[in-house]
């Protein structure tokens, strides 16, 4: 892009009516682009909402799927919802403490060289495609042992970790240095300062980051294909077994021939979408609240 000279002479030389016309055109294009973007979103969300709402019933949550039947039979996705709860829950339990600790280390303790190295590692981890994480966890935990919800959770935790760590780092950085210094000056040991004074200030941001990370992995399919896809039709809670999950269920139902399967896929997609929407909106609201409280300038 060439630097455009904005001298009065050059502008006058081009002629005002023509410039105004070009400006109008560009504004129109921008309006069109925005309309198109909104339209796309509306179409996708409307598709899911309309087809999903029609198929949404209690059966989805209380009945389990049937592998094959010659005639239509009432079924649902109870096993997928249960499995998603377990897998995402365990993934959060794995990623949350590690993410917070990494953020604490980078923000409070690390030397600049170590800090940039670990920060780079976090960026790299964030940049690994989910399907490669699936291959990795498959080779690490599944070969020889069999699939399990634990393996699936570990894969999701790898995806969540950089998200949690980054958002925690951001809020930790927002806590003013003076707070730490005052605490240390009063004789509070460093570890106590970090855990009891600094960290509580950041709880809102940590929760926000965690909620966003959960919303992100709740819909992750690729790593679960490798780690928790050979599943049964019954509801199970044991993480040693492979458990069905909502995104994998949607993936499989989408390719089926039965319109009833499609309907259940839409319904499950709607539930997933609503969960993610509420989680994201909730997180944004928390961000607004937290930044107001910390007085951050956005």
């Amino acid at each position, binding site marked *: 892009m060439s630097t455009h000279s904005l001298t009065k002479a050059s502008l006058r030389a081009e002629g005002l009516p023509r410039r105004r016309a070009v400006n109008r055109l560009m504004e129109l294009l921008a309006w069109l682009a925005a309309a198109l973007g909104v339209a796309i979103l509306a179409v996708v969300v409307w598709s899911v909402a309309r087809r999903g709402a029609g198929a949404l019933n209690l059966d989805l949550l209380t009945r389990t799927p*049937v592998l094959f*039947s010659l005639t239509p039979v009432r079924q649902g996705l109870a096993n997928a919802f249960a499995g998603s*709860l377990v897998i995402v829950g365990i993934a959060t339990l794995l990623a949350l403490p590690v993410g917070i600790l990494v953020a604490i280390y980078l923000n409070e303790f690390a030397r600049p060289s170590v800090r940039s190295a670990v920060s780079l590692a976090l960026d790299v981890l964030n940049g690994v495609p989910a399907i490669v994480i699936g291959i990795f966890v498959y080779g690490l935990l599944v070969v020889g042992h069999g699939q399990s919800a634990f393996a699936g959770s570990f894969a999701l935790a790898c995806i969540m970790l950089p998200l949690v760590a980054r958002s925690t780092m951001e809020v930790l950085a927002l806590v003013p240095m003076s707070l730490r210094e005052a605490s240390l000056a009063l004789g509070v040991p460093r570890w106590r300062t970090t855990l009891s004074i600094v960290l509580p200030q950041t709880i809102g941001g940590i929760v926000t980051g965690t909620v966003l990370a959960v919303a992100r992995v709740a819909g992750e399919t690729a790593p679960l294909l490798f780690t928790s*896809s050979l*599943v049964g039709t019954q*509801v199970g809670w044991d993480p040693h077994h492979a458990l069905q999950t909502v995104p994998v269920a949607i993936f499989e139902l989408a*390719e089926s*021939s*039965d319109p009833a399967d499609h309907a259940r896929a839409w319904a499950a997609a709607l539930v997933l979408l609503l969960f993610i929407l509420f989680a994201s909106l909730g997180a944004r609201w928390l961000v607004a609240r937290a930044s107001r409280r910390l007085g951050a300038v956005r």
Partner: protein
Amino acid sequence: MRTLALIAAVVAASVAAGTAGATPVKQSGTTLVGAGSSFVAPLVSQWIPAVGSAYGYGLQYSPIGSGGGINAITGRTVDFGASDAPLSPDQFTACKGCAQIPWALSATAVIYNLNGVKNLLHMDGPTLAGIFSGQIAAWDDAAIKKLNPGVSLPSAKIAIVHRSDNSGTTYNFTDYLSSASPAWRSATGTGVAVNWPVGSGARGSSGVAATVAQTQGGIGYVDVAYAKANQLQFLAMKNQSGKFTTPGLRGIIAAASSDQKPDPATNQLSIVNPPKKYDLAYPISTYTYVIVPLQSSKAQELRKFLFWAVTKGQAFGPKLLFQPIPKNVLVVAEKTIAKIHN
């Protein structure tokens, strides 16, 4: 924020309550996990509740395709694999002490979607090979017309749908094409996944059935149970005696009588394109196998399950167009099952 957390907790708890109350998990402990062929999935799905109530075992089965099943049992990520394609010597070696046991018998239907044509279309091997290699591109091609005199065929393009995953049904289908057409054998050959000259891929037999059902002029191949479930038309295939047969119980058992001796080393049977003598045979029939490690920590449960499957389990077959396996094959199967040990 506390209210949000409260709401989240309530929602999670109610989901948990709803799903837990759904179907109480009846099994008394052992779960048998299997994966593989989508061909045999209709039959296995009937077995799941039956085995549960008979022995209290929780049977899990994932129809990921025969290739996936062989892969899974080789890596011991499942307790048993299922494949319609018999294991090659390399695969036997890789599987390290696995046994291959024929446990079901059915056929591959060639499904098609031509809304205007209500008649049962006739087809033979070489023409079918011509279609799937792209040489015959339209439904009103001369070769197809010759086999179906008097039927008005539309000039629609033939849209081929094949399996995108590694599939025993593909193996069975390409085995038949290779046997009926030397041109196909040299150009493309037999396998669970081949270099398809034309066509688009779909995952699983259900995927192929779905795609054909939604594509005008589509043609594909699936286990006949899927054709029945989706009410899809299938072709009547010409067997070696010149008769046109459909994938029904009669055609299947006639084909099965063409090979009654499982291979002594691998238990393999080949009943594709049977010789002229078997004039009622449907030429794309096949056995399907369960692959188990001869040494397993769940040996007792596997033996019980497999004995049940090849005897009482066969009774669930006929309405899904699975023929109960013949007596001499059953004897060999039972002998092999008895060898599974701890």
